[in-house]
């Protein structure tokens, strides 16, 4: 007889859906089916069951092959690597719980490491902009119940946050939006005719990388000042029409993604988007929100924030917290060869960093803590498989609107596989022993 676990949290994207239903076998060991999840979320739960899953740590041999080692040996290697390094980089933290992040930061403080999370290649520039000009934001619940002007700027939730539109932003019927998408006008700004753009009322097919110009043009249009004939490939009339649509709403929201954070101008794009939001508040209520990628990258920023005062790229190597993106950020450190060991947990820089940074990781003593086989695990000196957070172990996570949600455990991890927290706690204890002899 199977049993159903309800209200399960999906540990994939920043939307952090909390309505999944998972059918598990009677002995609580096997996931049989998943309801309500998107294709990516369902795959994440099912992959935890894969028969070829790695269940013991593996150490790279001189010929490049991998040999199974015990968790004790893995703890010893990791602790010694961090202990011996002058300036280790501890990167990742976005696909794990806040509890694990906290233990990781304790280790980082002890060994004088640099702690950086995936915001560094995602919404890092957003965080810089927020420090510059602040951010008028809200929760996803407010958007569901109130928002009637939805702008997706440089983001494609149909692909990256598949249930975002149906749960919060476009389709749901809320308290003041009781006709669902009939109450809302959707504007998409993207250089491609994305699947999100296809369902929009207005699509601005902007010239790639001209976001700053178009944002400025909307601000000009709001002030009724003259505009050139076209800006960023968009005719003047369309810009004025868009500004009128934004002004005429009762509650608007700008969601933005990698299209603005990763194109040139970077944090200045976000600065301008936030200032557009501020300008719109002269006419109506407007908010802005970053479409965060990993399910707990927001949590990593929160935990780093309350412990050290900065949301990413925190350098603890001098015994106090420093923060200077461009200097203390992972890619700059790796490319300049400024770190001498790399510890990765809950992320895959091997696949998602430029190859010049990946080459540096492969040359250094390195540990990759990840349930999957990834390009990072296959170039690291040590790969430590762990239990999936949100599937095999619970923990606290933060949604993209900074709302904390407790992830639930659904099934037991395979026998003998440690969780992130257990592994980090053992490394921490071993470091205490090593440092006691200092």
């Amino acid at each position: 007889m199977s049993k159903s676990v309800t209200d399960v949290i999906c540990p994939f994207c920043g939307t952090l859906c909390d309505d999944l239903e998972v059918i598990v076998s009677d002995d609580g060991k096997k996931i049989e089916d998943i309801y309500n999840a998107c294709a990516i979320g369902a795959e994440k739960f099912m992959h935890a069951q894969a028969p070829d899953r790695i269940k013991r740590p593996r150490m790279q041999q001189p010929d490049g092959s991998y040999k199974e080692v015990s968790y004790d040996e893995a703890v010893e290697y990791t602790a010694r690597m961090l202990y011996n390094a002058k300036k280790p980089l501890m990167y990742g933290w976005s696909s794990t719980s806040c509890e694990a992040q906290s233990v990781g930061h304790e280790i980082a403080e002890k060994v004088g490491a640099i702690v950086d999370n995936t915001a560094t290649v995602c919404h890092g520039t957003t965080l810089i902009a927020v420090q510059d000009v602040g951010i008028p934001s809200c929760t996803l619940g407010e958007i569901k119940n109130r928002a009637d002007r939805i702008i997706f700027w440089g983001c494609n939730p149909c692909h990256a946050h598949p249930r975002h539109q149906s749960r919060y932003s476009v389709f749901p019927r809320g308290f003041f939006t009781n006709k669902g998408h009939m109450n809302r006008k959707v504007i998409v700004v993207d250089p491609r005719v994305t699947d999100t753009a296809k369902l929009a009322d207005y699509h601005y097919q902007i010239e790639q990388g001209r976001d700053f110009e178009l944002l400025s043009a909307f601000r000009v249009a709001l002030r009724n000042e003259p505009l050139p004939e076209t800006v960023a490939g968009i005719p003047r009339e369309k810009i004025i029409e868009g500004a009128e649509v934004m002004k005429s709403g009762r509650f608007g929201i700008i969601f933005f993604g990698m299209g603005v954070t990763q194109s040139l101008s970077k944090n200045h794009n976000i600065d301008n988007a936030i200032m557009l939001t501020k300008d719109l508040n002269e006419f109506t209520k407007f908010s802005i929100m970053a479409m965060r990628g990993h399910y707990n990258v927001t949590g990593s920023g929160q935990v780093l924030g309350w412990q050290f005062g900065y949301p990413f790229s925190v350098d603890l190597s001098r015994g106090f917290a420093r923060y200077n993106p461009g200097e203390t950020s992972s890619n700059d450190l790796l490319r300049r060869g400024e770190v001498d060991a790399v510890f990765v947990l809950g992320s895959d820089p091997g696949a998602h960093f430029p190859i010049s940074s990946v080459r540096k990781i492969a040359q250094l003593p390195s540990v990759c803590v990840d349930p999957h086989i990834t390009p990072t695990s296959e170039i690291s000196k040590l790969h430590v498989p762990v239990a999936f957070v949100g599937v095999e172990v619970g923990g606290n996570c933060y949604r993209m609107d900074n709302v904390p949600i407790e992830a639930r455990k659904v099934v037991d991890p395979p026998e003998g596989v440690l969780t992130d927290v257990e592994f980090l706690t053992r490394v921490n204890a071993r470091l205490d022993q090593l440092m006691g002899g200092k």
Partner: protein
Amino acid sequence: MAKLKLNLISGRTIQQGVAMEGGKEKDAYTKACGIIEMDPSDLKKLGIWKGTNVRVTSEWGSVVVKAVEATQGPHPGLAYIPMGPWANSVVNPRTYSTGMPTFKGVPIEVEPAMNEPVLSSVQLVQKKCRGEA
């Protein structure tokens, strides 16, 4: 052989997400991300059929991927490689003091490479790290 200059962006696709969670060492991940989405007019300019392997070269590197027709187009002049090690072999790693590499807006050159294989993610990264690819 014809060469075509394009502007490259990268990002998520749902196929990339599903294949990534299914295992980055698997074929499905190569099929989802070892591709370049090009506008039909650009495929024509290059004189190739969709499904042909092409070599993508930028100032920062080079990689072989399969050219496919844009699913979210038209976008002439713009090319799209889903985020992953293939895109990251050619993206601009400069951060301009923000910490963020320039993943979007990379000038590239595309040329047909029918006889060259698309490597799997693990093979590609390992070979690049050893300086073999």
